[in-house]
């Protein structure tokens, strides 16, 4: 995939000096990738995810125009404004189907989707399930902070029981969603978990998700310092917690083992839980197209349509 992303566009505007044949564009610098200054609160875990996205683009020499960054609604979903690339700030919960529209119609682009737990597991829960099962080629990073931050502290679908929010003054009563279990059960083909306080691990997971030919899902714990301070201290060695990687002997193709791993008590494990190489929806649709186009080989579009009209005379 990285090669496709780095491809130089075939058509260059004549008014701009085209690169000499064979000349390589230099990789982008962080300065060239960064756009607006993030609007997040100081100390927010999302800064780390953004910095590592820049690092990924730098490291893999991805050009601005070869990626599209899509988000829904939420604090983390402000992401596209901070990236110098074609971006989309869509509606709440529906970033995945939007991104699917891009992915399926533009095989030359790589689509990254960023969002929060409300977007992914509450209002967009249906889309999470179906994008997973359809195995659409795109990378989805969910910055999970266990709380609604943008609307100022309401219970989220991942808030643990007992969490005191403005909508659960006495503590949350509903059982939270386990994103890893949800993804595995829905048929996601790449399921990983990381935490924003471990930058190297975030980068490794994002890169592995990007390189996965299919729906690459990464849950990244990302602390909301304003409304859920200390939520993830137990996973942060600097705060006295433990960062436990997925055991080396874990077989990532073993769905049951992955599901079991996902059931571990917080802070649980970090790393790739599950991965398989089922063909993507993109590949399957392309195969259907190839088969159908073979039957009308050599015909112009209007002639294909004419064949239908001839049958209706």
């Amino acid at each position, binding site marked *: 995939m990285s090669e496709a992303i780095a491809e130089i*566009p075939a*058509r*260059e*505007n004549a*008014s*701009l000096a085209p690169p000499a044949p064979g000349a390589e564009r230099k990789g982008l610098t962080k300065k*060239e990738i960064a*756009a*607006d200054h993030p609007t997040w609160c100081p100390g927010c875990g999302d800064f780390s995810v953004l910095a590592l996205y820049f690092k990924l683009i730098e490291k893999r020499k991805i*050009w*601005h*125009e*070869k990626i*599209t960054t*899509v988000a829904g609604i939420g604090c983390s979903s402000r992401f*596209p*404004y901070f*990236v*110098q*690339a*074609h*971006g*989309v*700030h*869509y*509606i709440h919960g*529906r970033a*995945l*189907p*939007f*991104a*699917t*529209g*891009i992915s*399926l*119609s*533009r095989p*030359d*682009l790589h689509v990254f989707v960023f969002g929060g737990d409300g977007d992914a597991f509450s209002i967009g829960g*249906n*889309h999470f*399930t*179906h994008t997973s099962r359809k195995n659409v080629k795109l990378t989805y990073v969910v910055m999970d902070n266990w709380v609604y931050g943008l609307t100022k502290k309401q219970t989220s679908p991942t808030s643990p029981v007992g969490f005191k929010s403005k909508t659960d003054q006495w503590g949350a009563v509903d059982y939270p969603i386990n994103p890893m279990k949800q993804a595995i059960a829905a048929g996601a083909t790449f399921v990983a978990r990381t935490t924003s306080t471990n930058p190297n691990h975030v980068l490794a997971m994002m890169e592995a998700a990007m390189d996965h030919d299919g729906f690459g899902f990464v849950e990244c714990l990302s602390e909301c310092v304003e409304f859920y301070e200390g939520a993830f201290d137990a996973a942060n060695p600097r705060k006295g917690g433990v960062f436990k990687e997925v055991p080396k002997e874990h077989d990532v193709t073993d769905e049951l083992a992955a599901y079991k791993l996902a059931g571990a008590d917080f802070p649980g494990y970090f790393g790739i839980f599950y991965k398989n190489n089922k063909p993507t929806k993109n590949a399957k*649709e392309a195969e*259907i*197209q190839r*088969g*159908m*186009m073979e*039957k*009308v080989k050599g015909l*112009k*579009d*209007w002639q294909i*349509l*004419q064949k*239908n*009209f001839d049958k*209706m*005379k």
Partner: protein
Amino acid sequence: MSDTIATASPSGGAPKVSKINEAVIRIAGNSQDGIQAIGGFLARLAGRSEQEVMTFMTIPATISGGPSIFQVRIGSGEVLSAGDEADVLLALYQHSYEDHIGSLKKGGIVLFDADHVEPKPEWQKDYHHVGIPLSTLAVEAIGGTAKDKGKNIYALGLIARMFDLNVPKLEKLISERFGGKDESIVKNALVAFHAGYAYNTGNLLETFKFTEGPGKGGHQVVMNGNEALGYGLIAAGVRFGAGYPITPWSDIMELLRRELPKYGGTFVQCEDEIASISMAVGASYAGRVAVTGSSGPGISLKSEALGWAVMAEVPLVIVDVQRGGPSTGLPTSVEQSDLNIARFGSHGDSPRVVLAPANVEDCFYTAIEAVNIARKYNVPVFILSDQAIATRIEAFPEPNLEKLCQDISPDLTTVPDFKPYDLTTPDGVVPRVVPGTRIASGKYPVATGLEHDEAGHPTAAPKMHQAMVAKRRRKLLALQATVPVPKVYGPPEGNVLLVGWGSTQGPIREAVDRARGAGDSISSLHIKHLNPLPNGLDNIFSGFHHVFVVEMNDEGLYGYGQLGGLLRARFCDPRIRGINKTDGLTWKVKEILAAVKMKLSSNGGAAKTV
């Protein structure tokens, strides 16, 4: 039919042969009797014979069984509606006979399956009854267990004999329809057809022969509105669509799913209506105008995403095949009650374009127009079709596909710089630069639902919101300036002007013809561009004493329906009043005329609402 019959004198004991120039045939049975197939054959035959044709069908909302009808009106002259009354009723069951005898004109012929129907003595004097043991004869003809399958084709043979239809053309149609399957199926179908055709017509009271119509030259194609709309989208260059199944929209998504891969395109069946519009907007954003669609309830679900497309200025085509509402309503009946949601649905000030095709042919061309408006103005465009137009079959001159088919692939040529929401263009329109395009300045745009500045960055500055709202409005004003003023059908001045939109054009025009024939001063106007409305309508209205807006929706609290409301708001003209109905059926010509008469005689409605 009777008004137009030039009767030939009956010769001896043989049945009378009457020359006719049109006929309405209603076939009533159950949904699994294949009566749609008979109707389809008759419609296609008319198309191949340079005749005009229009059909009307009802299907039950249940999966299997249930009463169903198919009505075909075939004519050598212009056919504008499916016909108020049938000349011939073919009734397969007792319920078909009892429920539909009322749709037969007095003196009309009822052909009934004597195996299933017990004719009523009291109806014998009003209608010519012809009983034929269809079920038994079909079994005799093709034998075995296929009796229910062959009955429809046997009946087609009878009708062919009765109307002296072109046998070789029908044989060819039957072979085409059943060809490709087991050869014995075609053979059986032809045997059943010929057995029906050979049935001794001695006891049929008369047979008919169509007069030659004016030759039209060129080929006709025969299809229903959903097919015309789907193929129109393909001709327009649409290569991506997304949808969720709902009646009567589903046919279009099935067609696109089947056809688009041939062109390198894709149609995705999504998990829900919201995903469908989101995926289509995503694909549109990625470069080529995409389509989503639904019917009533599904459109409601799409309205948040529609608002985003307006705000982000991403083109999109949304098809709404209207049905009776609200809620699940009447899934297989017709209504024009989604104009308000198409026009106003969603939140905030969200200008969008609304078009309504007037007939099946117009479905094809409206699809192309919708795509081109969406592309040019970067705005969502609604196509308001309806259940009646979706399922009815018409013949129309074959479009020049070589000329009409267009390529709307995005241009990915590098641009020096790009401001997606540039405020300096006079008409508010900024050509899009889609993902995959390199922008030499290194500044990349964000397509956003937040109010934004010219570069697409969020801002809540009061002046900026005002300027952007105005920009989105200006685009539609620019479009409005290009919308043609619709032509008045009939004289441009007179007593009554009937105003319609969408699938009602045919019956409204036929009502005008009939009333003018009787000496009334009446004309009609059909509005296809419902938002923005064409300029110049007030000038047209001023030529008439009464303006009645004929719609298949409720007259509301103030005596006019949804288009009536829009026109009243636009022109503040108290002459605008409504002629409305909500029975889930298409307009009959006589219903329109009766309503006009009532409005004119009472005139109370006008006084109340002035």
